[in-house]
């Protein structure tokens, strides 16, 4: 049996609702594809309204051609993004053959799926708004189609009746979603989360990478400094360290090829270090924005690692999976610590951490040799290097370009740069002096959001510093930037920008927006198995007992259902007759003109009183009220046209302009 055909009105509903589900995916698509999709939609719409269906071979060819182009632009790799792009394309192409009720329903269903899939690409609150909108439209379209099914085609459809206009339809759909909230909340908070994914975890075919990278070439981070978007948000559970103490430790770079610093995955595993905390641990939780990499930024230095996170020997944290989504970590760090090489590996460490490529930076080598010849010890070397920076160097975000002997050029010629240049040059100098040294990248500082009582680390807080190893002290943090531009460390990256009054005005707004975003991250994105357990524990529920969780889920769902049922069964107040509303409008006009009446006065009483008060309009007032009374009380049947006219006349009634309400004498 053929599924009944869709009429124009329902086609329009579907043609608007179905692409809305994919709207959230659109920005992640290649530009050419987004434009093409919009174009296709603009073609499909008039075709569908005129019920023109393109011949099958054309549709198949177009579908195959565009799908092929799409896949080739993703390099034929299948990831979540390829899938999302494909489903978007197919949904838009589906509009070209959306002609029956069954077509419409399947398109709506898949569009819901697309709205869900969009979250696999981005989880921001703006996505939620878009999918919320999509949900409302899709449910409304489903309801429209169900109505089409329930209405005999031969009967004149009450298209113009106020019960089926699109605002009413959207309101009903919104109501349905609101009714669904209690049950959805129960499901969301209590439904058991999977500790392990059921199947593989396909990543993206092309991953956007943000923030710090695996390597550091001086001159790299510069674009980060201009990016004010948050890298992570932090909430301290105990004491809050000073902002200048907030060094967020990222990847530690130990290999240098003359130009670029990079991690040595071998040393991170093979070179154990001894760690001894000297102060109380500080507990905090961070919510890190997606980076596509594994680095978890902990306060220098972390003492514990969370689940899903591993710690390297040089004490930075790596997550087990790339951070494709916003993720929350609970961490603890100590600010005072002693990190030393294991005696057994001391020589190896000294050897590896002083390695430099041959044939680079001869002038620097010469300078260090001179300092050593003057009998400077390790500490003195650090001091002299810092003094050198302090005296003659300039902190700038737009440094001159460096060539082969980058450290030489930086130290003797340009003498201008930012944290990467300083830490790189400093580390090279230390290594030349046979002092083990390495570069640490990460973030420095944080911005306090008073609205949310949390700290925001922004991409512009990206930083690089050095660690040198001193006998008897272990690894010591040295931040050469702090001697050149101390305000950078004390005031954070804000110091690099001119303070403007504009910023101070919008700051509370920005803070609030950031707080909302953090709440979203916290409440929705960060709600994982661990948080769920903490929610269950006070209720005395053992999170590992499926039986108990099942019972709790059933009880909570039952309560939510009762709420929904109660809301559903409440009678909506019947809408007031528009004619009565027009009459109300009319008598309000009369009152403005000074006629006094009470709610229980009969219409004729009111109109007589008004007629006496407004002699020039008396005829009109009497005529109008007689017409109204005839309808309301004498049972006179009015057809649609007569009703409309009476309604209009009542509404159009105006008090003559020259009438001045008489004040009644007291």
């Amino acid at each position, binding site marked *: *049996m053929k599924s009944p055909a869709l009429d124009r009105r329902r086609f329009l509903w579907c043609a608007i609702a179905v692409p809305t589900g994919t709207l959230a995916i659109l920005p992640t698509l290649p530009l050419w594809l987004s434009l093409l999709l919009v174009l296709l939609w603009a073609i499909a719409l008039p075709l569908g309204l005129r019920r023109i269906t393109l011949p099958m071979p054309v549709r198949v060819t177009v579908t195959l051609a565009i799908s092929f182009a799409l896949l080739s632009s993703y390099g034929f790799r299948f990831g979540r993004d390829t899938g999302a792009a494909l489903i978007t394309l197919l949904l838009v192409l589906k509009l070209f053959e959306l002609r029956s009720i*069954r077509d419409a*329903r399947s398109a709506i*269903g*898949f569009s*819901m*799926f697309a*709205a*869900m*899939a969009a*979250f*696999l690409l981005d*989880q921001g609150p703006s*996505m*939620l708004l878009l999918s919320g909108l999509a*949900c409302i439209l899709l*449910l409304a379209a*489903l*309801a429209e*189609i*169900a*109505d*089409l*099914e*329930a*209405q*005999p*085609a*031969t009967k004149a459809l009450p298209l113009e009746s106020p*019960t089926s206009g699109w605002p009413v339809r959207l309101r*009903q759909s919104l109501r*349905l*979603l609101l*009714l*669904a*909230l*209690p*049950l*959805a909340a129960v*499901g*969301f908070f209590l*439904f058991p*989360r*999977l500790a392990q*994914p*059921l199947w593989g*975890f396909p990543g993206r075919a092309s991953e956007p990478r943000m923030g710090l990278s695996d390597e550091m070439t001086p001159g790299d981070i510069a674009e980060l400094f201009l990016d004010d978007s948050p890298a992570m948000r932090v909430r301290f559970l105990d004491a809050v360290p000073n902002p200048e103490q907030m060094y967020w430790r990222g990847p530690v770079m130990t290999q240098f090829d003359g130009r670029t610093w990079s991690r040595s995955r071998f040393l991170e595993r093979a070179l154990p270090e001894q760690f001894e905390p000297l102060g109380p641990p500080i507990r905090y939780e961070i919510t890190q924005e997606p980076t596509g990499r594994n680095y978890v930024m902990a306060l220098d230095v972390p003492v514990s690692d969370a689940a899903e996170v591993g710690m390297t020997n040089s004490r930075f944290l790596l997550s087990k999976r790339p951070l494709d*989504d916003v993720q929350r970590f609970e961490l603890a760090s100590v600010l005072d610590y002693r990190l030393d090489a294991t005696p057994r590996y001391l020589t190896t460490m000294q050897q590896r951490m002083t390695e430099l490529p041959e044939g680079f930076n001869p002038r620097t080598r010469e300078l260090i040799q001179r300092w050593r010849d003057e009998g400077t010890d390790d500490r003195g070397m650090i001091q002299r290097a810092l003094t050198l920076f302090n005296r003659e160097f300039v902190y700038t975000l737009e440094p001159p370009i460096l060539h082969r002997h980058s450290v030489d050029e930086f130290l003797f010629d340009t003498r201008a740069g930012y944290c990467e240049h300083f830490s790189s040059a400093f580390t090279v100098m230390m290594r030349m002096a046979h002092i083990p040294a390495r570069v640490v990248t990460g973030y420095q500082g944080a911005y306090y959001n008073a609205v949310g009582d949390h700290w925001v680390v922004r991409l512009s807080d990206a930083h690089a510093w050095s660690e040198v190893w001193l006998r008897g002290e272990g690894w010591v943090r040295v931040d050469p930037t702090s001697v050149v531009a101390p305000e950078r460390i004390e005031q954070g990256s804000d110091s690099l920008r001119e303070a403007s009054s504009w910023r101070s005005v919008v700051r509370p707004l920005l803070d609030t927006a950031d707080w909302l975003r953090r709440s979203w991250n916290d409440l*929705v*994105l*960060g709600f*994982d198995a661990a948080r769920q357990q903490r929610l269950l524990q006070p209720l005395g529920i053992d999170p590992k007992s499926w039986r108990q969780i099942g019972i709790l889920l059933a009880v909570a769902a039952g309560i939510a259902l009762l709420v*929904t*049922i109660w809301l*559903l*069964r*409440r*009678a*909506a107040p*019947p809408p007031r007759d528009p004619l009565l509303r027009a009459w109300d409008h009319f008598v309000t006009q009369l009152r403005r003109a000074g006629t006094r009446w009470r709610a229980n006065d009969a219409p004729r009483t009111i109109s007589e009183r008004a007629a006496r008060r407004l002699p020039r309009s008396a005829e009109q007032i009497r005529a109008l009220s007689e017409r109204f009374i005839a309808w309301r009380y004498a049972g006179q049947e009015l057809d649609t046209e007569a009703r409309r006219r009476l309604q209009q006349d009542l509404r159009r009634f105006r008090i003559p302009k020259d009438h001045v309400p008489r004040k009644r004498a007291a």
Partner: protein
Amino acid sequence: MNNEAIDGGRFFALMSWIERRLPALTRLKQPEALPLILNRKRLYVLPTGAGLFIGALLIGMLLGALNYNNNPALLLSFLIASAVHSSLLQGYFNLLGLRVLQLDAEPAHAGERINLTLRLENPDGRARNGLCFRLDERASSLSLAGNTRGHVDLGVVAQRRGYQRCGRIAVFTRHPLGLFRVWSWISPDRQLLVYPAIERDGPPLPLPSTDGNRRWRRSPGEQLHSLRDYRVGDPLRLMAWKRSAQMGRPLVREFEAPTGGQIELDWQTLDGIDNETRISRLTRWLLEAERLGLKTRLVLPSQSFGPDRGDQHRRNCLTALALLPGAASGDAP
């Protein structure tokens, strides 16, 4: 009136198949007196095809969201699933508490359609939309605003003269999203009277010759009384062709006979043919005579009517004809 869309034909065909296989299901469906209220004991819910499809998609969405540990996706899936579930509840409450007040029926001749009017009341303040009713392969729908009454027109084919059960009416709704079908059965214990079939081709009404000839000519004393819808068996000469064309449906002239002729229709005179043919011939003659404005006297084996004319007389005669021995009793299923 019949419409593929509201039909739900395949579903109810499946249901009747199941009932044939599992007769126990039908035991609740004994005829019952109106008015009745659709209570929860008699409401059934099953997902429609679209509902199953959306359900499968939702399971896919939930698994995907759980697998990726993606909370917003999970939230969205739960939200849609919960909205779908609320639509089930909404559909359920759409039928729950609906009052079926009465079933009006006009008697019809065997082989014709009996027009039924089912009167309903919505006793609650909330509106009930998209209520569908299905009887005898045909469906129609209705929406009721809060605290209002309404009626829906149904029809059933009259089988045999005598009494006939009206059969089981399916009340169902797919409101609001079309994902669930909530339904109930009403079997009103209402006997529908079926008049005998009208004989198709048979000898004409034996008119008294003088009277009859007079009738076919227009005499000044005869007044055009009114126009009415064409009925099977009306003589073509009575057709009001011009008016029919204007109104778009066949109309015939009806005359007020200034002087009532009289005719006797006697069961005994129609000898030599079987009883059912006799009955349907008498029926046709009765109707024809009535149309011509003649007084009739119907003589049946055990009773006689008239001479008289008019609706009441016609009804009495037709009822008597319908219930002559051999009529359907209606009590048999």
